C-alpha cells in the first residue's frame, strides 16, 4: 500500500536521492541539501501556522511505500507564488498585422514576459521513484494535494497552476533555451535552472528580454518545442489535465514547457470529494478504488484503497483504517479514484 503524508526532517536523505533522480528541468525541486532542508522546514512551519489567507506557505508531501516504509515520491503546493519576488512566465499573445490593400492578414505569436501567475497557488514537483511510477501511485500522490486543498481552501487561492517540464534531451539540452535564454543569461540551461531554484529570482528581471519575442523569428527547432511537455512528465500531466487543468498560452521562460491552470472549485477531485464518517468493513472490500484522507494538518494522511460508499459514510477495510490512524466513526474525506 501507499500512503501520502507531510514531509518530516527525517525524510531529507530520501528527498535528496529523489531530487538527484529527477534531474534537470524540475526547477522547484533542486538536488541541494540545504535548499531541501529549507523546504522541509518551510512545510512544517506552514502546517503549524494558523492561516487566514494564503501567503508564502509551502507544503511538501511524501509518498511512502508502506510495505517497507520507504519514501518513493514527493510533491508539494506553494500557497502563493510571487509574494517576495515576481513569478515570471511567457504569455503567448498573437499580434495581428493586416494590410487590406495587399490582402495580407498575419497573426504573429509573440512571447511576452509577464508575471500573471504571481499571487496564485502552485502545484510543485511531482517526483516518483522509477520503480513506483504506476498509475495508482502517481494518481494518489498528485490528487492527495487536491484533497488537502479541498480540506483547507482558506490556505490557497481560487486559481491553481502547475508547470509542466518542457522538452529537453537527456543531457539537459533545450533547443528553446539555446535559441533564446542562452543569449541573455550567458550560461547554460542547467546553471540557469539551478539558480532559479536556489537564488531569489531577481536575476531574471535583470537579464531577461524586456520586449516581446516574435515566435517566427526563432529557429524552427525552438518554435517546435514551445508548449510541448517533456515525455517524462506526460503521465503526471495527464492526471492534471483529466482533473480539469487547461493550457492558457503560458509557458516556462527557460524551456517553454506549458503552464496549466484551473479554478480550484472546478477540479474533478475537489467537486467530487465527500466528507463523512469512516465505517468498518469486516471483510475485504469489493468496492471501487478510493482516495481517502484523514487527520488534521501535520497529521494529514491520504491513502488509496477499495472502499464502499454508504448512506452513513464510507466503509473501509481495517488495514486502511490503520494506515490512516483512524477507527470507525472518525471523520474522513474521500473521492472515487
Amino acid at each position, binding site marked *: 500500500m501507499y500512503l501520502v503524508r507531510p514531509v518530516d526532517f527525517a525524510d531529507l536523505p530520501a528527498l535528496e536521492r529523489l531530487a538527484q533522480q529527477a534531474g534537470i528541468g524540475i526547477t522547484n525541486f533542486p538536488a541541494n541539501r540545504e535548499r531541501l532542508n529549507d523546504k522541509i522546514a518551510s512545510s512544517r512551519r506552514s502546517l503549524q501556522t494558523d492561516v487566514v489567507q494564503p501567503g508564502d506557505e509551502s507544503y511538501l508531501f511524501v509518498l511512502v511505500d508502506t510495505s517497507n516504509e520507504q519514501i518513493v515520491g514527493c510533491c508539494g503546493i506553494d500557497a502563493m507564488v510571487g509574494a517576495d519576488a515576481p513569478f515570471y512566465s511567457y504569455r503567448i499573445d498573437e*499580434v495581428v*498585422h*493586416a*494590410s487590406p*490593400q*495587399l490582402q*495580407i492578414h*498575419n497573426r*504573429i505569436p*509573440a512571447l511576452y514576459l509577464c508575471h500573471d501567475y504571481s499571487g496564485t497557488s502552485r502545484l510543485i514537483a511531482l517526483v516518483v521513484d522509477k520503480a513506483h511510477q504506476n498509475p495508482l501511485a502517481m494518481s494518489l500522490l498528485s490528487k492527495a494535494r487536491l484533497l488537502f486543498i479541498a480540506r483547507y481552501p482558506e490556505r490557497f487561492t481560487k486559481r491553481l497552476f502547475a508547470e509542466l517540464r518542457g522538452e529537453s534531451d537527456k543531457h539537459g539540452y533545450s533547443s528553446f533555451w539555446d*535559441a*533564446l535564454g542562452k*543569449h*541573455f*543569461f*550567458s*550560461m547554460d540551461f542547467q546553471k540557469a535552472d539551478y*539558480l532559479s531554484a536556489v*537564488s531569489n529570482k*531577481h*536575476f531574471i528581471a*535583470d*537579464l*531577461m*528580454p*524586456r*520586449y*516581446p*519575442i*516574435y515566435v*517566427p*523569428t*526563432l*529557429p524552427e527547432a525552438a518554435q517546435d518545442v514551445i508548449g510541448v511537455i517533456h515525455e517524462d512528465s506526460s503521465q503526471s500531466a495527464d492526471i492534471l489535465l483529466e482533473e480539469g487543468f487547461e493550457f492558457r498560452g503560458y509557458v516556462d521562460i527557460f524551456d517553454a514547457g506549458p503552464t496549466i491552470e484551473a479554478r480550484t472549485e472546478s477540479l474533478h477531485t475537489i467537486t467530487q470529494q465527500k466528507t463523512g464518517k469512516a465505517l468498518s468493513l469486516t471483510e475485504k472490500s469489493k468496492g471501487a478504488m478510493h482516495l481517502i484522507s484523514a487527520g488534521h494538518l501535520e497529521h494529514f494522511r491520504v491513502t488509496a484503497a477499495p472502499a464502499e460508499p454508504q448512506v452513513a459514510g464510507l466503509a473501509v477495510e481495517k488495514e486502511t483504517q490503520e494506515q490512516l490512524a483512524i477507527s470507525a466513526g472518525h471523520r474522513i474525506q474521500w473521492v472515487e479514484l
Partner: protein
Amino acid sequence: MMVIRPICQNDLKSLYRLAEKTGVGFTSLVADETILQKKIDGAVRSFSKENVTKPTNEDYLMVLEDSTTGEIVGTCGILAAVGLDEPFYSYHLGTITHASRELGVHNAVPTLILNNDFTGCSEICTLFLEEDFRHSKNGQLLSKARFMFMAQFPERFTEKVFAEMRGVSDENGVSPLWESLGRHFFSIDFKEADELTAQGNKQFIAELMPNNPVYVNLLPKAARDVLGNVHTNTVPARRLLEQEGFRYENYVDIFDGGPSLEARVQDIRAVRDSRLCLANIGQPKGVGEGSHYLVSNAKVTDFRCILIQRSVPPGSALTLTQEEADALCITTKEPVRIVELSPYSRH
C-alpha cells in the same frame, strides 16, 4: 565636356534608357514612363522655384550630359525633405544592457528599433552612371556636384543630409536580413516589398512591421553580419561619401540592413572647403594638368557643374577657358564656386 545640369522635359527618353539599365534593386529609377515623367515634372518645378526659404518637397534631379554629343549618361538627385507625404522608415541599431551584479553577468544586447527619425531630412539619392562612362572621374563629378549645389543653396536643405546605401544580397537578390526578419512579417518577396516602397507606397510597412524592438542577438549570424554593410558594388560609393565626411550613425534599411550615411551639410568636405570667386575668361595656365577641381555656377534653374584640371592652384579669381565658361553658362566676372575634387587631390 561632361556637364551636370538640371533635368528638363526633353530628357524623358534618355532617362527611360538609363532606367532600363539600372537593373533590379535600384528602386528610385524604374523604367516606367508615367513615373519618370512625374519625376521630371517635380524636378523642373523644384529648380524653377525662386525664393525657397526652407526645404519642403523639392526633388532636385540632375543629369550628366556629354556636351559634345548631347548624350545623357548619368543622373543624381537630392530630395529636399523625405517622409512628408509617405512615412520614411528605418531601423536604428541601438543597445540594451542587461546586467545582474549578483551573477556577474553583463550583456550589451543590440536591438533594431523601427523609427521615422529621418522624417523631414534631406537625402542624396538616385545616383547612376552608365557603365561606358565610369572613367575620367565622371562618377565623382556626378556624386559631388550635389554638394556644390547644397553649398550654394543651403537654405534649400536641412542641416543634416543622408544617403541610403544598398545592403548586402547575393547574386540572386536574396537578402539575409530579409530572409530572417522581414519575410516573417510581410508574407511577400523582398523584390515586391522593395518595389512597393519605390512607388512611394509605404502604408504596408506600418501595417505589417512589428513595433517592438527586435533583438539582434536572436537573429541568425548571416543576418547579423550584414547589418550596416553595403553590397560589394556599393563599396566605392560608400568610401567616396565617407571621404567627404559622411558617417554611419547606426541607421540601417529595414529590408536589407544597408547603412544610411549622414553628415551635417556644413561639415561635408566639398561644402566646407568650397569657395566663391569671380570668373575670368581667357587662357588659363596649366590646363589639363595637375589637380582636378569641381566648378559650379551660382544659379538655381541654370545650375551647372563641371570638372577642370589645373597645374597651378586657382586663387581668388579663376580663369576659365571659353569652353568651360560656356559649359557653366556664365560670362566674365560672374561668381563661380570651386573646390578640390577630392580631399587628397593636391598632388
